[in-house]
């Protein structure tokens, strides 16, 4: 399986990612993408910007472990994960998960599984800047349920 993991300050371009996947996978018929963006509201507070911290030595390893699991479970031909760090403004792109598979059902499932695992296993933390001051974003229980629903949450 072709794979690429990037942790970067810069924005990403989805069309470029599709081009990379096409160039590195043959026989792929379905490409699924998930893009996450900075919300402009959270818990009824206006979000002015966001600061993304991570654990550099670990994050990339975790993302590769997540891709290992998706690859073992689905007939994936390629996967690219890009996660931004540093300061981001409201509505900026944060994360892109892109997956190529022979069939669309597997592309959708693999992309969603990678996102669900990323939410609970990848070592990123968000701090929101609001008019009331800064605050660390709290983890959501619903994300743990989503991860658990895949049945195997080893990492």
């Amino acid at each position, binding site marked *: 399986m072709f794979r690429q993991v990037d942790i970067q300050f810069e924005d990403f371009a989805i069309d470029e990612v599709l081009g990379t996947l096409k160039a590195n996978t043959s026989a792929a018929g379905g490409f699924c993408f998930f893009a*996450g963006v900075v919300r402009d509201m959270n818990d009824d507070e206006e979000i002015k910007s966001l600061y*993304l*911290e*991570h*654990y550099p*030595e*670990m994050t990339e*390893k*975790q993302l590769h472990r997540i891709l290992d699991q998706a690859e073992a479970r689905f007939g994936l031909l390629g996967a690219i994960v890009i*996660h931004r760090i540093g300061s981001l403004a409201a509505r900026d792109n*944060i*994360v892109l998960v892109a997956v190529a598979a022979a069939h669309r059902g597997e592309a959708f499932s693999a992309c969603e599984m990678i*996102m669900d695992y*990323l*939410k*609970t*296993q*990848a*070592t*990123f*933390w*968000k*701090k929101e800047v609001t008019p009331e001051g800064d605050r*660390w*974003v*709290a*983890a959501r229980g619903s994300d743990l349920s989503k991860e658990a629903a895949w049945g195997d949450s080893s*990492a």
Partner: protein
Amino acid sequence: MKVLFFASLRETMACSELAWTSDQPDNVASLMTQILLPDGQSLASYAETESLLIAVNQQMVDGDTALNPGDEVAFFPPVTGG
């Protein structure tokens, strides 16, 4: 050993990284009783009320995990990326 703290725990500890030069603890739980927060409570007692994740050598583990000299031990709150 090297001990790392991230995100809100880094701010609470007022510390990102700690070179552990005291006695080598047997496991993570034992290390947590020896790490003290600025308010004087131990990390073990802090973890009784706050969610805390633990990684040893960049792998998620639990408190029973044995520790060896040279290990990199990290403590952090639940992750919130994506």
